Protein backbone atom coordinates (compact mmCIF):
# COMPACT_ATOMS: atom_id res chain seq x y z
CA UNK A 1 0.00 0.00 0.00
CA UNK A 2 2.96 2.27 -0.51
CA UNK A 3 5.39 3.32 -3.16
CA UNK A 4 8.94 3.35 -1.82
CA UNK A 5 11.70 5.31 -3.51
CA UNK A 6 15.37 5.16 -2.63
CA UNK A 7 17.20 8.14 -4.10
CA UNK A 8 21.01 8.06 -4.14
CA UNK A 9 21.18 6.22 -0.84
CA UNK A 10 24.63 5.90 0.70
CA UNK A 11 25.61 4.40 4.01
CA UNK A 12 29.10 4.46 5.44
CA UNK A 13 30.66 4.00 8.86
CA UNK A 14 33.81 6.11 8.79
CA UNK A 15 35.88 4.79 5.91
CA UNK A 16 33.77 1.66 5.52
CA UNK A 17 31.09 1.73 2.87
CA UNK A 18 27.92 -0.21 3.57
CA UNK A 19 25.75 0.95 0.68
CA UNK A 20 26.67 3.02 -2.39
CA UNK A 21 24.46 4.96 -4.80
CA UNK A 22 21.33 2.91 -4.40
CA UNK A 23 18.50 4.15 -6.60
CA UNK A 24 15.31 2.15 -6.62
CA UNK A 25 11.63 2.79 -7.21
CA UNK A 26 9.39 0.15 -5.65
CA UNK A 27 5.83 0.28 -6.93
CA UNK A 28 2.77 0.00 -4.75
CA UNK A 29 1.92 -3.66 -3.98
CA UNK A 30 5.16 -4.83 -5.57
CA UNK A 31 7.20 -7.71 -4.12
CA UNK A 32 10.88 -6.79 -4.39
CA UNK A 33 13.65 -9.12 -3.29
CA UNK A 34 17.15 -7.91 -2.40
CA UNK A 35 19.53 -10.72 -3.26
CA UNK A 36 23.24 -10.94 -2.70
CA UNK A 37 26.02 -12.55 -0.70
CA UNK A 38 26.67 -11.80 2.98
CA UNK A 39 27.88 -8.24 3.52
CA UNK A 40 26.57 -6.92 0.20
CA UNK A 41 24.46 -4.21 1.85
CA UNK A 42 21.01 -5.70 1.34
CA UNK A 43 20.05 -5.84 5.03
CA UNK A 44 21.49 -2.36 5.65
CA UNK A 45 19.36 -1.02 2.80
CA UNK A 46 16.27 -2.66 4.30
CA UNK A 47 17.10 -1.33 7.77
CA UNK A 48 17.32 2.16 6.29
CA UNK A 49 13.84 1.73 4.80
CA UNK A 50 12.61 0.60 8.24
CA UNK A 51 14.24 3.58 9.95
CA UNK A 52 16.56 1.40 12.03
CA UNK A 53 19.61 2.90 10.27
CA UNK A 54 20.08 6.43 9.03
CA UNK A 55 21.38 6.89 5.50
CA UNK A 56 24.62 8.89 5.29
CA UNK A 57 23.28 10.52 2.14
CA UNK A 58 20.21 10.31 -0.06
CA UNK A 59 16.48 10.22 0.46
CA UNK A 60 14.00 7.54 1.40
CA UNK A 61 10.55 8.47 0.14
CA UNK A 62 7.29 6.69 0.92
CA UNK A 63 4.19 7.76 -0.96
CA UNK A 64 5.85 11.07 -1.80
CA UNK A 65 6.88 11.83 1.81
CA UNK A 66 10.57 11.99 2.70
CA UNK A 67 11.12 9.59 5.58
CA UNK A 68 14.73 10.33 6.58
CA UNK A 69 13.82 12.21 9.76
CA UNK A 70 10.87 10.05 10.71
CA UNK A 71 11.36 7.52 13.52
CA UNK A 72 11.08 3.80 12.86
CA UNK A 73 7.99 3.63 15.04
CA UNK A 74 6.21 6.27 12.98
CA UNK A 75 6.96 4.80 9.55
CA UNK A 76 4.18 2.23 9.69
CA UNK A 77 6.21 -0.59 8.24
CA UNK A 78 6.12 -4.11 9.66
CA UNK A 79 9.32 -6.07 9.80
CA UNK A 80 9.97 -9.81 10.07
CA UNK A 81 13.42 -10.73 11.35
CA UNK A 82 15.75 -13.60 10.62
CA UNK A 83 15.80 -14.59 14.30
CA UNK A 84 11.99 -14.14 14.65
CA UNK A 85 12.40 -11.50 17.43
CA UNK A 86 9.34 -12.65 19.35
CA UNK A 87 9.00 -11.11 22.80
CA UNK A 88 9.91 -13.99 25.11
CA UNK A 89 7.87 -12.86 28.11
CA UNK A 90 4.62 -12.61 26.14
CA UNK A 91 2.33 -15.30 24.77
CA UNK A 92 1.88 -15.54 21.01
CA UNK A 93 -1.45 -13.76 21.45
CA UNK A 94 0.26 -10.88 23.26
CA UNK A 95 3.07 -10.84 20.72
CA UNK A 96 0.61 -10.41 17.85
CA UNK A 97 -1.33 -7.85 19.88
CA UNK A 98 1.73 -5.74 20.68
CA UNK A 99 1.72 -3.61 17.47
CA UNK A 100 -2.03 -3.04 17.85
CA UNK A 101 -1.51 -1.67 21.36
CA UNK A 102 1.42 0.48 20.23
CA UNK A 103 -0.53 1.93 17.29
CA UNK A 104 -3.57 2.74 19.41
CA UNK A 105 -5.96 0.41 17.60
CA UNK A 106 -9.24 0.34 19.63
CA UNK A 107 -9.18 -2.54 22.14
CA UNK A 108 -12.47 -4.03 21.01
CA UNK A 109 -10.96 -4.74 17.58
CA UNK A 110 -7.88 -6.54 18.91
CA UNK A 111 -9.24 -10.04 19.33
CA UNK A 112 -10.78 -10.26 15.85
CA UNK A 113 -7.63 -8.88 14.19
CA UNK A 114 -5.35 -11.23 16.13
CA UNK A 115 -7.44 -14.27 15.27
CA UNK A 116 -7.59 -13.26 11.61
CA UNK A 117 -3.80 -12.86 11.42
CA UNK A 118 -3.21 -16.11 13.31
CA UNK A 119 -5.67 -17.82 10.98
CA UNK A 120 -3.78 -16.66 7.92
CA UNK A 121 -0.62 -18.37 9.20
CA UNK A 122 -2.48 -21.36 10.70
CA UNK A 123 -1.51 -20.56 14.28
CA UNK A 124 -4.87 -20.13 16.02
CA UNK A 125 -4.34 -23.18 18.27
CA UNK A 126 -1.06 -21.84 19.65
CA UNK A 127 -2.07 -18.36 20.75
CA UNK A 128 -1.76 -19.03 24.49
CA UNK A 129 1.76 -20.45 24.24
CA UNK A 130 5.03 -18.68 24.91
CA UNK A 131 7.52 -18.49 22.00
CA UNK A 132 9.81 -21.00 23.73
CA UNK A 133 7.05 -23.62 23.45
CA UNK A 134 6.89 -23.38 19.65
CA UNK A 135 8.97 -24.97 16.90
CA UNK A 136 11.10 -22.86 14.56
CA UNK A 137 8.45 -22.87 11.82
CA UNK A 138 5.69 -21.92 14.25
CA UNK A 139 7.79 -19.08 15.66
CA UNK A 140 8.41 -17.76 12.19
CA UNK A 141 4.69 -17.90 11.45
CA UNK A 142 4.01 -16.08 14.73
CA UNK A 143 6.46 -13.37 13.65
CA UNK A 144 4.64 -13.18 10.33
CA UNK A 145 1.27 -12.89 12.10
CA UNK A 146 2.63 -10.02 14.20
CA UNK A 147 3.62 -8.25 10.98
CA UNK A 148 0.32 -8.75 9.17
CA UNK A 149 -2.03 -8.11 12.10
CA UNK A 150 -2.25 -4.45 11.19
CA UNK A 151 -2.27 -3.31 7.61
CA UNK A 152 1.13 -1.61 7.41
CA UNK A 153 2.35 0.49 4.52
CA UNK A 154 4.97 -2.12 3.73
CA UNK A 155 6.34 -5.47 4.86
CA UNK A 156 10.07 -5.71 5.34
CA UNK A 157 11.37 -9.27 5.66
CA UNK A 158 14.98 -9.91 6.56
CA UNK A 159 15.91 -13.48 5.61
CA UNK A 160 12.82 -14.77 7.41
CA UNK A 161 13.23 -18.37 6.28
CA UNK A 162 16.94 -18.90 6.66
CA UNK A 163 16.65 -20.75 9.99
CA UNK A 164 14.11 -23.27 8.71
CA UNK A 165 14.74 -26.65 7.12
CA UNK A 166 14.34 -27.06 3.36
CA UNK A 167 10.84 -28.55 3.42
CA UNK A 168 9.45 -25.97 5.82
CA UNK A 169 11.15 -23.20 3.86
CA UNK A 170 9.38 -24.25 0.71
CA UNK A 171 6.03 -24.35 2.54
CA UNK A 172 6.57 -20.95 4.14
CA UNK A 173 7.68 -19.46 0.83
CA UNK A 174 4.36 -20.36 -0.75
CA UNK A 175 2.53 -19.03 2.33
CA UNK A 176 4.37 -15.69 2.27
CA UNK A 177 3.70 -15.19 -1.42
CA UNK A 178 0.04 -16.09 -0.97
CA UNK A 179 -0.41 -13.71 1.96
CA UNK A 180 1.36 -10.88 0.14
CA UNK A 181 -0.85 -11.29 -2.90
CA UNK A 182 -3.96 -11.49 -0.74
CA UNK A 183 -3.15 -8.44 1.40
CA UNK A 184 -1.69 -6.48 -1.54
CA UNK A 185 1.00 -4.86 0.61
CA UNK A 186 4.29 -3.61 -0.81
CA UNK A 187 6.97 -6.04 0.31
CA UNK A 188 10.75 -5.81 0.47
CA UNK A 189 12.39 -9.14 1.15
CA UNK A 190 16.07 -9.79 1.80
CA UNK A 191 17.66 -13.13 1.10
CA UNK A 192 20.86 -14.76 -0.08
CA UNK A 193 18.88 -17.73 -1.41
CA UNK A 194 18.38 -17.39 -5.16
CA UNK A 195 15.50 -19.90 -5.19
CA UNK A 196 13.58 -17.72 -2.72
CA UNK A 197 14.35 -14.68 -4.83
CA UNK A 198 13.32 -16.29 -8.11
CA UNK A 199 10.09 -17.76 -6.76
CA UNK A 200 8.88 -14.82 -4.67
CA UNK A 201 9.90 -11.67 -6.48
CA UNK A 202 8.12 -9.44 -8.93
CA UNK A 203 11.54 -7.85 -9.28
CA UNK A 204 14.93 -8.86 -7.95
CA UNK A 205 17.60 -6.37 -6.91
CA UNK A 206 21.00 -8.02 -6.99
CA UNK A 207 23.59 -6.36 -4.77
CA UNK A 208 27.30 -6.80 -4.27
CA UNK A 209 29.77 -4.73 -2.26
CA UNK A 210 27.08 -2.24 -1.33
CA UNK A 211 26.04 -1.47 -4.90
CA UNK A 212 23.14 -2.61 -7.07
CA UNK A 213 24.38 -4.91 -9.83
CA UNK A 214 21.10 -5.39 -11.63
CA UNK A 215 17.38 -4.81 -11.17
CA UNK A 216 14.93 -6.93 -13.10
CA UNK A 217 12.24 -9.56 -13.13
CA UNK A 218 13.41 -13.09 -12.30
CA UNK A 219 13.34 -13.92 -16.03
CA UNK A 220 15.42 -10.86 -16.93
CA UNK A 221 17.94 -11.58 -14.21
CA UNK A 222 18.30 -15.18 -15.30
CA UNK A 223 18.22 -14.74 -19.03
CA UNK A 224 19.81 -11.35 -19.44
CA UNK A 225 22.50 -10.90 -16.76
CA UNK A 226 24.16 -7.49 -16.73
CA UNK A 227 27.59 -8.68 -15.64
CA UNK A 228 29.62 -11.70 -14.60
CA UNK A 229 28.66 -11.24 -10.93
CA UNK A 230 24.96 -11.62 -11.71
CA UNK A 231 25.64 -14.42 -14.20
CA UNK A 232 27.66 -16.30 -11.63
CA UNK A 233 25.34 -15.62 -8.68
CA UNK A 234 22.11 -16.82 -10.27
CA UNK A 235 21.68 -20.42 -11.34
CA UNK A 236 22.60 -23.72 -9.76
CA UNK A 237 25.16 -24.70 -10.84
CA UNK A 238 26.10 -21.17 -11.86
CA UNK A 239 26.86 -20.03 -15.39
CA UNK A 240 30.16 -21.30 -16.83
CA UNK A 241 32.43 -18.31 -17.40
CA UNK A 242 35.34 -19.00 -19.71
CA UNK A 243 38.00 -16.31 -20.16
CA UNK A 244 39.53 -16.24 -23.65
CA UNK A 245 40.14 -14.11 -26.74
CA UNK A 246 37.85 -12.97 -29.49
CA UNK A 247 39.10 -12.29 -33.03
CA UNK A 248 36.90 -11.71 -36.04
CA UNK A 249 33.87 -13.20 -34.23
CA UNK A 250 35.74 -16.33 -33.20
CA UNK A 251 36.15 -17.00 -29.47
CA UNK A 252 39.03 -19.21 -28.38
CA UNK A 253 40.18 -20.49 -25.02
CA UNK A 254 41.98 -23.71 -23.99
CA UNK A 255 39.71 -26.52 -25.30
CA UNK A 256 37.09 -24.03 -26.53
CA UNK A 257 36.35 -22.62 -29.98
CA UNK A 258 33.12 -20.84 -30.83
CA UNK A 259 32.50 -19.24 -34.20
CA UNK A 260 29.85 -16.90 -35.51
CA UNK A 261 29.90 -14.44 -32.63
CA UNK A 262 29.59 -10.64 -33.15
CA UNK A 263 32.89 -9.41 -34.59
CA UNK A 264 32.73 -6.04 -32.80
CA UNK A 265 34.01 -7.43 -29.49
CA UNK A 266 37.56 -8.39 -30.42
CA UNK A 267 40.02 -8.66 -27.53
CA UNK A 268 39.88 -10.21 -24.08
CA UNK A 269 36.39 -11.57 -23.64
CA UNK A 270 34.70 -13.90 -21.18
CA UNK A 271 32.17 -16.28 -22.66
CA UNK A 272 29.28 -17.36 -20.47
CA UNK A 273 27.02 -20.33 -20.98
CA UNK A 274 24.66 -21.98 -18.51
CA UNK A 275 25.04 -25.71 -17.75
CA UNK A 276 21.53 -26.39 -19.13
CA UNK A 277 22.46 -24.70 -22.44
CA UNK A 278 25.30 -27.15 -23.01
CA UNK A 279 24.70 -30.51 -24.68
CA UNK A 280 27.03 -33.48 -24.89
CA UNK A 281 27.75 -34.21 -28.57
CA UNK A 282 29.20 -37.20 -30.33
CA UNK A 283 31.09 -35.10 -32.88
CA UNK A 284 33.42 -32.19 -32.06
CA UNK A 285 31.45 -29.41 -30.36
CA UNK A 286 32.38 -26.00 -29.04
CA UNK A 287 34.31 -27.40 -26.12
CA UNK A 288 36.40 -30.50 -25.73
CA UNK A 289 37.69 -31.63 -22.35
CA UNK A 290 38.33 -34.61 -20.13
CA UNK A 291 35.65 -35.95 -17.82
CA UNK A 292 36.38 -34.72 -14.31
CA UNK A 293 33.20 -35.85 -12.57
CA UNK A 294 29.82 -37.47 -13.26
CA UNK A 295 27.03 -36.94 -10.70
CA UNK A 296 23.67 -38.59 -11.41
CA UNK A 297 20.84 -36.95 -9.44
CA UNK A 298 17.93 -38.99 -10.76
CA UNK A 299 16.29 -36.46 -13.04
CA UNK A 300 19.58 -35.41 -14.66
CA UNK A 301 23.30 -35.98 -14.56
CA UNK A 302 25.81 -33.30 -13.68
CA UNK A 303 28.88 -33.66 -15.87
CA UNK A 304 32.03 -31.74 -15.02
CA UNK A 305 34.63 -31.37 -17.77
CA UNK A 306 38.12 -30.06 -17.47
CA UNK A 307 39.18 -27.80 -20.35
CA UNK A 308 42.64 -26.28 -19.81
CA UNK A 309 42.59 -25.48 -16.10
CA UNK A 310 38.89 -24.56 -16.12
CA UNK A 311 36.09 -26.81 -14.86
CA UNK A 312 32.91 -26.65 -16.95
CA UNK A 313 29.54 -27.80 -15.61
CA UNK A 314 27.05 -29.45 -17.95
CA UNK A 315 23.52 -30.66 -17.22
CA UNK A 316 23.41 -33.88 -19.20
CA UNK A 317 20.66 -36.42 -19.81
CA UNK A 318 19.82 -38.48 -16.74
CA UNK A 319 21.14 -41.65 -18.45
CA UNK A 320 24.47 -40.08 -19.40
CA UNK A 321 27.49 -41.89 -17.97
CA UNK A 322 31.21 -41.56 -18.81
CA UNK A 323 34.53 -42.81 -17.47
CA UNK A 324 36.72 -40.41 -15.57
CA UNK A 325 39.43 -38.76 -17.68
CA UNK A 326 37.79 -39.90 -20.93
CA UNK A 327 37.37 -37.21 -23.59
CA UNK A 328 33.98 -35.59 -24.09
CA UNK A 329 32.72 -32.87 -26.36
CA UNK A 330 30.02 -30.32 -25.67
CA UNK A 331 28.05 -27.96 -27.88
CA UNK A 332 26.60 -24.63 -26.71
CA UNK A 333 23.16 -23.29 -27.63
CA UNK A 334 24.25 -20.36 -29.86
CA UNK A 335 21.22 -18.27 -28.78
CA UNK A 336 22.21 -18.67 -25.12
CA UNK A 337 25.82 -17.58 -25.28
CA UNK A 338 26.70 -14.46 -23.28
CA UNK A 339 29.78 -12.31 -23.78
CA UNK A 340 31.38 -10.19 -21.05
CA UNK A 341 34.28 -7.79 -21.02
CA UNK A 342 36.97 -9.67 -19.09
CA UNK A 343 38.41 -6.56 -17.45
CA UNK A 344 35.17 -4.93 -16.23
CA UNK A 345 32.93 -7.98 -16.10
CA UNK A 346 30.21 -5.98 -17.91
CA UNK A 347 28.02 -7.61 -20.51
CA UNK A 348 28.93 -7.06 -24.18
CA UNK A 349 25.85 -6.73 -26.32
Amino acid at each position, binding site marked *: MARIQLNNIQKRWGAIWGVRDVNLDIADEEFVVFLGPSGCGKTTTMRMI*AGLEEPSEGEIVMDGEVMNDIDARDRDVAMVFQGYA*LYPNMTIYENIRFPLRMRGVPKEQHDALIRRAAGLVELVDYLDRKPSALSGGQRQRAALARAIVRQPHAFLMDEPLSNLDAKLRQHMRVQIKHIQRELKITTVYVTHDQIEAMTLADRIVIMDKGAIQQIGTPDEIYNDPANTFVANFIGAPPMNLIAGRMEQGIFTAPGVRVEGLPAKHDGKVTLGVRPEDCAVTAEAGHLTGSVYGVEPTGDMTYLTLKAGDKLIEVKAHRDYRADLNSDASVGFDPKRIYLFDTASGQRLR
Partner: protein
Amino acid sequence: MASARKRSRGESLALRYAILGAWALFCLVPVLWFLSIGLRPRTEIITPQPIYFPTFSLDAWHMIWEDWPMGKYLRNSVLAIIGSVIIDLVLAIPAAYSLSRFEYKGRDDIGFYILSTRMMAPAIVAVPIFFLFRNFGLLDTIWALMLIYAAINLSFVTWIIRSYMLDIPKELEDAAKTDGAGELRILWEIIIPAILPGIITASVIAMIFAINEFLFTLLIASTPDAYTMSVALANFTGGSDGVIYNAIALVAFLAFLPVFLVVVLIQKHLSRGLTMGAVKG
Protein backbone atom coordinates in the same frame (compact mmCIF):
# COMPACT_ATOMS: atom_id res chain seq x y z
CA MET B 1 29.34 -54.04 27.29
CA ALA B 2 26.09 -52.21 27.83
CA SER B 3 25.86 -53.26 31.47
CA ALA B 4 29.45 -52.12 32.03
CA ARG B 5 28.56 -48.72 30.58
CA LYS B 6 25.43 -48.58 32.75
CA ARG B 7 27.45 -49.43 35.86
CA SER B 8 30.05 -46.80 35.02
CA ARG B 9 27.29 -44.20 34.56
CA GLY B 10 25.80 -45.16 37.94
CA GLU B 11 29.19 -44.89 39.60
CA SER B 12 29.81 -41.52 38.00
CA LEU B 13 26.43 -40.30 39.31
CA ALA B 14 27.19 -41.58 42.80
CA LEU B 15 30.57 -39.84 42.72
CA ARG B 16 28.93 -36.59 41.67
CA TYR B 17 26.43 -36.80 44.51
CA ALA B 18 29.22 -37.62 46.94
CA ILE B 19 31.24 -34.56 45.87
CA LEU B 20 28.19 -32.29 45.93
CA GLY B 21 27.10 -33.68 49.30
CA ALA B 22 30.55 -33.11 50.76
CA TRP B 23 30.59 -29.55 49.42
CA ALA B 24 27.10 -28.84 50.78
CA LEU B 25 28.16 -30.16 54.19
CA PHE B 26 31.32 -28.05 54.07
CA CYS B 27 29.24 -24.93 53.41
CA LEU B 28 26.46 -25.73 55.87
CA VAL B 29 28.47 -26.92 58.88
CA PRO B 30 29.50 -23.40 59.99
CA VAL B 31 25.89 -22.23 59.74
CA LEU B 32 24.58 -25.19 61.72
CA TRP B 33 27.40 -24.74 64.20
CA PHE B 34 26.31 -21.14 64.68
CA LEU B 35 22.75 -22.24 65.22
CA SER B 36 23.83 -24.84 67.76
CA ILE B 37 25.87 -22.23 69.66
CA GLY B 38 22.88 -19.89 69.64
CA LEU B 39 20.65 -22.54 71.14
CA ARG B 40 22.97 -23.51 74.03
CA PRO B 41 23.44 -21.98 77.46
CA ARG B 42 26.23 -19.45 77.63
CA THR B 43 28.25 -21.44 80.18
CA GLU B 44 28.37 -24.47 77.92
CA ILE B 45 29.91 -22.55 75.05
CA ILE B 46 32.97 -21.32 76.85
CA THR B 47 33.77 -24.53 78.66
CA PRO B 48 37.16 -25.92 77.55
CA GLN B 49 36.02 -29.58 77.44
CA PRO B 50 34.15 -30.82 74.37
CA ILE B 51 30.46 -31.42 74.95
CA TYR B 52 29.04 -34.25 72.91
CA PHE B 53 25.44 -33.89 74.03
CA PRO B 54 24.76 -30.14 74.29
CA THR B 55 21.88 -28.77 76.32
CA PHE B 56 19.13 -27.05 74.40
CA SER B 57 18.45 -23.56 75.67
CA LEU B 58 16.48 -20.55 74.48
CA ASP B 59 18.37 -18.18 76.79
CA ALA B 60 19.94 -16.32 73.91
CA TRP B 61 16.66 -16.21 72.04
CA HIS B 62 14.90 -14.61 75.00
CA MET B 63 17.82 -12.32 75.56
CA ILE B 64 17.97 -10.87 72.09
CA TRP B 65 14.26 -10.18 71.93
CA GLU B 66 13.63 -9.12 75.52
CA ASP B 67 16.83 -7.39 76.62
CA TRP B 68 17.65 -5.91 73.24
CA PRO B 69 15.39 -4.19 70.67
CA MET B 70 16.22 -6.85 68.08
CA GLY B 71 12.87 -6.40 66.37
CA LYS B 72 13.75 -2.77 65.77
CA TYR B 73 17.19 -3.68 64.44
CA LEU B 74 15.67 -6.25 62.13
CA ARG B 75 13.10 -3.76 60.90
CA ASN B 76 15.84 -1.15 60.36
CA SER B 77 17.89 -3.68 58.38
CA VAL B 78 14.95 -4.72 56.22
CA LEU B 79 13.86 -1.14 55.50
CA ALA B 80 17.38 0.06 54.73
CA ILE B 81 18.15 -2.91 52.51
CA ILE B 82 14.89 -2.92 50.56
CA GLY B 83 15.05 0.87 50.16
CA SER B 84 18.63 0.71 48.94
CA VAL B 85 17.84 -2.03 46.42
CA ILE B 86 14.90 -0.03 45.08
CA ILE B 87 17.10 3.07 44.71
CA ASP B 88 19.76 0.95 43.00
CA LEU B 89 17.31 -0.53 40.51
CA VAL B 90 15.69 2.80 39.70
CA LEU B 91 19.11 4.27 38.90
CA ALA B 92 20.90 1.20 37.53
CA ILE B 93 18.33 0.00 35.01
CA PRO B 94 18.24 3.21 32.90
CA ALA B 95 22.02 3.59 33.31
CA ALA B 96 22.63 0.03 32.15
CA TYR B 97 20.19 0.50 29.25
CA SER B 98 22.07 3.56 28.14
CA LEU B 99 25.48 1.92 28.54
CA SER B 100 24.45 -1.22 26.70
CA ARG B 101 22.27 0.16 23.93
CA PHE B 102 23.18 3.68 22.89
CA GLU B 103 26.26 4.85 21.03
CA TYR B 104 27.78 8.07 22.33
CA LYS B 105 31.17 9.56 22.95
CA GLY B 106 32.77 8.50 26.21
CA ARG B 107 30.26 5.73 26.86
CA ASP B 108 32.87 3.12 27.73
CA ASP B 109 34.77 5.62 29.92
CA ILE B 110 31.60 6.36 31.85
CA GLY B 111 30.99 2.64 32.28
CA PHE B 112 34.51 2.15 33.58
CA TYR B 113 34.21 5.14 35.89
CA ILE B 114 31.06 3.68 37.42
CA LEU B 115 32.87 0.41 38.06
CA SER B 116 35.99 2.10 39.34
CA THR B 117 34.07 3.60 42.28
CA ARG B 118 34.04 0.08 43.64
CA MET B 119 37.82 -0.16 43.51
CA MET B 120 38.66 2.25 46.33
CA ALA B 121 38.73 1.30 50.00
CA PRO B 122 35.48 2.48 51.68
CA ALA B 123 37.45 3.94 54.61
CA ILE B 124 38.83 6.63 52.26
CA VAL B 125 35.42 8.26 51.92
CA ALA B 126 34.18 7.52 55.42
CA VAL B 127 35.00 10.92 56.89
CA PRO B 128 33.68 13.03 53.98
CA ILE B 129 30.50 10.96 53.96
CA PHE B 130 30.06 11.49 57.69
CA PHE B 131 30.28 15.27 57.26
CA LEU B 132 28.10 15.24 54.19
CA PHE B 133 25.34 13.34 55.94
CA ARG B 134 25.70 15.47 59.06
CA ASN B 135 25.28 18.64 56.98
CA PHE B 136 22.14 17.21 55.42
CA GLY B 137 20.84 16.24 58.85
CA LEU B 138 20.67 12.60 57.87
CA LEU B 139 22.84 11.10 60.58
CA ASP B 140 21.20 8.33 62.59
CA THR B 141 18.37 7.81 60.08
CA ILE B 142 17.26 4.87 57.97
CA TRP B 143 17.27 7.18 54.94
CA ALA B 144 21.00 7.67 55.30
CA LEU B 145 21.52 3.92 55.43
CA MET B 146 19.41 3.44 52.33
CA LEU B 147 21.45 6.05 50.46
CA ILE B 148 24.81 4.73 51.59
CA TYR B 149 23.97 1.09 50.80
CA ALA B 150 22.59 2.17 47.43
CA ALA B 151 25.75 4.18 46.69
CA ILE B 152 28.02 1.29 47.65
CA ASN B 153 26.15 -1.24 45.50
CA LEU B 154 25.13 0.94 42.56
CA SER B 155 28.24 0.26 40.48
CA PHE B 156 28.06 -3.51 40.43
CA VAL B 157 24.25 -3.57 40.18
CA THR B 158 24.61 -1.40 37.06
CA TRP B 159 27.29 -3.69 35.65
CA ILE B 160 25.41 -6.91 36.31
CA ILE B 161 22.25 -5.53 34.68
CA ARG B 162 24.29 -4.12 31.82
CA SER B 163 25.83 -7.52 31.11
CA TYR B 164 22.36 -9.11 30.98
CA MET B 165 21.14 -6.35 28.67
CA LEU B 166 24.04 -6.94 26.31
CA ASP B 167 22.80 -10.51 25.92
CA ILE B 168 19.36 -9.39 24.75
CA PRO B 169 19.21 -9.68 20.95
CA LYS B 170 19.12 -6.25 19.29
CA GLU B 171 16.44 -7.65 17.00
CA LEU B 172 13.94 -7.59 19.89
CA GLU B 173 14.28 -3.83 20.20
CA ASP B 174 14.23 -3.34 16.45
CA ALA B 175 11.04 -5.39 16.27
CA ALA B 176 9.45 -3.32 19.04
CA LYS B 177 10.49 -0.09 17.27
CA THR B 178 8.93 -1.12 13.98
CA ASP B 179 5.86 -2.26 15.93
CA GLY B 180 5.53 1.34 17.12
CA ALA B 181 7.07 1.32 20.61
CA GLY B 182 9.17 4.17 22.02
CA GLU B 183 12.36 3.76 24.05
CA LEU B 184 10.72 3.79 27.49
CA ARG B 185 8.05 1.36 26.38
CA ILE B 186 10.74 -0.95 24.99
CA LEU B 187 12.64 -0.76 28.26
CA TRP B 188 9.56 -1.42 30.37
CA GLU B 189 7.75 -4.03 28.28
CA ILE B 190 10.54 -5.85 26.47
CA ILE B 191 13.92 -5.39 28.13
CA ILE B 192 13.05 -5.51 31.83
CA PRO B 193 10.96 -8.71 31.61
CA ALA B 194 13.69 -10.31 29.51
CA ILE B 195 16.43 -9.51 32.03
CA LEU B 196 14.39 -10.30 35.14
CA PRO B 197 16.85 -13.04 36.20
CA GLY B 198 19.63 -10.46 36.01
CA ILE B 199 17.66 -7.93 38.05
CA ILE B 200 16.92 -10.56 40.68
CA THR B 201 20.56 -11.69 40.78
CA ALA B 202 21.81 -8.13 41.17
CA SER B 203 19.20 -7.41 43.86
CA VAL B 204 20.12 -10.49 45.89
CA ILE B 205 23.82 -9.69 45.74
CA ALA B 206 23.09 -6.08 46.72
CA MET B 207 21.02 -7.35 49.66
CA ILE B 208 23.84 -9.62 50.82
CA PHE B 209 26.37 -6.78 50.65
CA ALA B 210 23.97 -4.43 52.43
CA ILE B 211 23.15 -6.83 55.24
CA ASN B 212 26.85 -7.36 55.86
CA GLU B 213 27.77 -3.68 55.67
CA PHE B 214 29.29 -2.57 58.95
CA LEU B 215 31.66 0.39 58.60
CA PHE B 216 29.26 3.04 57.29
CA THR B 217 26.38 1.78 59.40
CA LEU B 218 28.48 2.19 62.52
CA LEU B 219 29.50 5.64 61.33
CA ILE B 220 25.98 6.84 60.55
CA ALA B 221 23.89 5.01 63.13
CA SER B 222 24.69 6.25 66.61
CA THR B 223 21.51 5.15 68.46
CA PRO B 224 19.22 2.08 68.27
CA ASP B 225 16.93 4.21 66.08
CA ALA B 226 19.13 3.39 63.11
CA TYR B 227 21.04 0.31 64.28
CA THR B 228 20.90 -2.64 61.95
CA MET B 229 21.59 -6.31 62.58
CA SER B 230 25.26 -6.03 61.66
CA VAL B 231 25.87 -3.23 64.15
CA ALA B 232 23.70 -4.97 66.73
CA LEU B 233 26.17 -7.85 66.63
CA ALA B 234 28.85 -5.52 67.90
CA ASN B 235 26.66 -4.71 70.89
CA PHE B 236 27.14 -8.20 72.21
CA THR B 237 30.91 -7.98 72.30
CA GLY B 238 31.40 -5.24 74.85
CA GLY B 239 29.99 -4.09 78.12
CA SER B 240 30.07 -5.60 81.56
CA ASP B 241 28.70 -8.95 80.34
CA GLY B 242 31.74 -9.64 78.12
CA VAL B 243 31.35 -11.37 74.77
CA ILE B 244 27.92 -13.01 74.59
CA TYR B 245 28.72 -15.73 72.07
CA ASN B 246 25.37 -17.46 71.94
CA ALA B 247 23.54 -14.18 71.30
CA ILE B 248 26.04 -13.21 68.61
CA ALA B 249 25.62 -16.61 66.98
CA LEU B 250 21.86 -16.40 67.04
CA VAL B 251 21.74 -12.87 65.64
CA ALA B 252 24.21 -13.85 62.94
CA PHE B 253 22.00 -16.79 62.07
CA LEU B 254 18.92 -14.57 61.97
CA ALA B 255 20.75 -12.14 59.70
CA PHE B 256 21.73 -14.98 57.42
CA LEU B 257 18.32 -16.66 57.31
CA PRO B 258 16.27 -14.11 55.30
CA VAL B 259 18.84 -13.88 52.50
CA PHE B 260 19.18 -17.65 52.46
CA LEU B 261 15.41 -18.08 52.15
CA VAL B 262 15.22 -15.46 49.41
CA VAL B 263 17.95 -17.24 47.44
CA VAL B 264 16.22 -20.62 47.88
CA LEU B 265 12.86 -19.20 46.78
CA ILE B 266 14.15 -17.46 43.66
CA GLN B 267 16.97 -19.80 42.66
CA LYS B 268 15.07 -20.70 39.49
CA HIS B 269 15.25 -17.05 38.41
CA LEU B 270 18.87 -16.72 39.36
CA SER B 271 19.81 -18.88 36.41
CA ARG B 272 19.58 -17.40 32.97
CA GLY B 273 17.27 -18.57 30.29
CA LEU B 274 14.24 -16.33 30.05
CA THR B 275 15.21 -15.20 26.59
CA MET B 276 15.20 -18.76 25.29
CA GLY B 277 12.75 -18.97 22.45
CA ALA B 278 12.91 -15.31 21.64
CA VAL B 279 15.30 -15.88 18.83
CA LYS B 280 16.37 -18.78 16.68
CA GLY B 281 17.27 -22.01 18.39
